[in-house]
């Protein structure tokens, strides 16, 4: 592991610990309104000031980070499992199944990711409780984000089936199901890990895009997307620079994931 990768690990651990400790670091919570101090600049009481509804921005950043950082990996896990199931089985069965699965994959891939996401998210209920909106948003990311990984897994599974050791196992009379679980799945693991890690920053950024467009997590629950929506009302950067803290945090976290990704890509290769 290089120095940069170690640094990325430290940053991610710190951010994750900070967000998990949000209850202790910001005991008032993300929804408490300080009506006497709306849109206030940073102070000793509110380190990052308050938003236009008087809610403590520091608390919202911590809780928003927790939501984005915990649910993006959950969505990535869902998409990786779907990719493994669809891509792995399509590659293993081959023939018409592989062609059908790849046709569906091509269809999803032919639509720009953000367009597909916005369309699908807008079709889901928008006037639901904040908790349901969080679940819907991240579940949608997981359900739609499997296509690229499925294509990679299908190709890898197909090439594995053509390898000598699988042919030998087949010639030795190993049943199909056993062959799949003993020889194909373990060899797909590095690709699966890589796809899982690749999906996390993609999903974090997608949620942020959805949030800014008003299709993400519902108020009052914070997420990086809803926190970044505040930038919409800015007149100049120098005016209220503390409003950029969520953006800086997001960039730092996604960059850390990208740095770690190079390690995963090496593993997959």
């Amino acid at each position: 592991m290089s120095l940069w990768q170690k640094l990325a690990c430290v940053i991610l651990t710190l951010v994750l610990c900070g967000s998990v400790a949000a209850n202790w670091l910001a005991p008032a919570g993300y929804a408490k309104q300080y009506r006497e101090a709306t849109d206030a600049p940073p102070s000793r009481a509110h380190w990052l000031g308050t938003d236009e509804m008087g809610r403590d921005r520091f608390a919202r950043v911590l809780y928003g980070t927790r939501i984005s950082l915990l649910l993006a990996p959950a969505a990535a896990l869902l998409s990786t499992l779907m990719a493994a199931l669809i891509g792995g089985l399509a590659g293993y069965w081959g023939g018409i199944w592989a062609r059908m699965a790849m046709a569906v994959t091509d269809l999803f891939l032919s639509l720009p990711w953000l367009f597909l996401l916005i369309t699908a998210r807008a079709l889901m209920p928008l006037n639901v409780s904040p908790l349901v909106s969080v679940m819907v948003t991240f579940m949608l990311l997981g359900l739609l984000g499997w296509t690229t990984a499925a294509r990679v897994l299908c190709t890898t599974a197909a090439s594995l089936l053509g390898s000598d050791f699988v042919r030998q196992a087949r010639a030795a009379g190993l049943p199909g199901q056993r062959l799949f679980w003993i020889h194909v799945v373990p060899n797909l693991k590095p690709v699966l890990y890589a796809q899982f890690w690749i999906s996390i920053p993609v999903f974090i950024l997608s949620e942020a895009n959805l949030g800014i467009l008003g299709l993400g997590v519902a108020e009052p629950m914070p997420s990086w997307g809803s926190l970044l929506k505040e930038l919409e009302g800015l007149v100049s950067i120098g005016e209220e620079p503390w409003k950029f803290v969520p953006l800086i945090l997001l960039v730092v976290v996604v960059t850390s994931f990208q740095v770690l990704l190079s390690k995963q890509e090496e593993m997959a290769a």
Partner: protein
Amino acid sequence: MRGLRWKIAGHASALVATVLLGGLLSATLVRLAPGFDADERELDPHLSAESVQALRDARHKSHNVFRFYLSYMKRAMTGDLGTSLALGQPVRTLLRDRAPLTLRLLAIGLALAWLLTLTLALSAARLRLSVYDTLTTAVSGTFLCIPAAVLALLSVLWNAPGALAIALIVFPHTYRYARNLLVKAYSRPHIITARAKGLGEARILFWHVVPVVTPQLLAVAGVSVSMAVGAAIPVEALCGLAGIGQLAWQAALARDLPLLVNITVLVTLVTLLANSSADVIGHVVRGQEV
């Protein structure tokens, strides 16, 4: 020549099938969406019972998604793309009015993105300075980590044109591929030999590097169109540009079935056309090389 014809025919049939499937998928999604039957116009106290019934009858026609899609296809053949439910205007007029702005935005955005990509990637591959390489990679990496919608907001804040936001969204993706391709091409033994023999840089570039990287760069160019189309949605929506991206966002929010189906078909068509064209041109270039 025959191989090329087959390739074009294969691409054309795949394109038609995918576009039709894309439209059907979009129509099915909208039809299955919760609240599809709801129409706030029915709550208008000024409307008579007959008018409310007429609204319900109009919506009833699109209840069966296959019937809706079939009738849509028949009408589309005659140039009638239906009427937007949310905006109350013919979809054809909406698309025709907004297409020029989006096309201009995409063309300028992509041109800027590729100009930036090729300038930085070529200089990184040619100079081979680790400081410069780290710097350009860091710049592209930073843009890769900023959400597209934030770049759109920042362009509003700085009064920058929307095309620049699209360029900065697309550039980091294209830069990564272009840089790797060019670095690999420049490190080929015959290029090192050519340089050692004193061949000029321009000649090395146009005679030995460009022919090698063109097919792959064309493939990336095809994909970059899809990225730009995706980027046009937040850019147009947040910058207040009345293009097809903004229309797509409005259609999605209003669950406007006719508009959404048409935009999906259009977006799928544009994306696939770009990818197929890149593939066919790449095939021709490879053929000429042989």
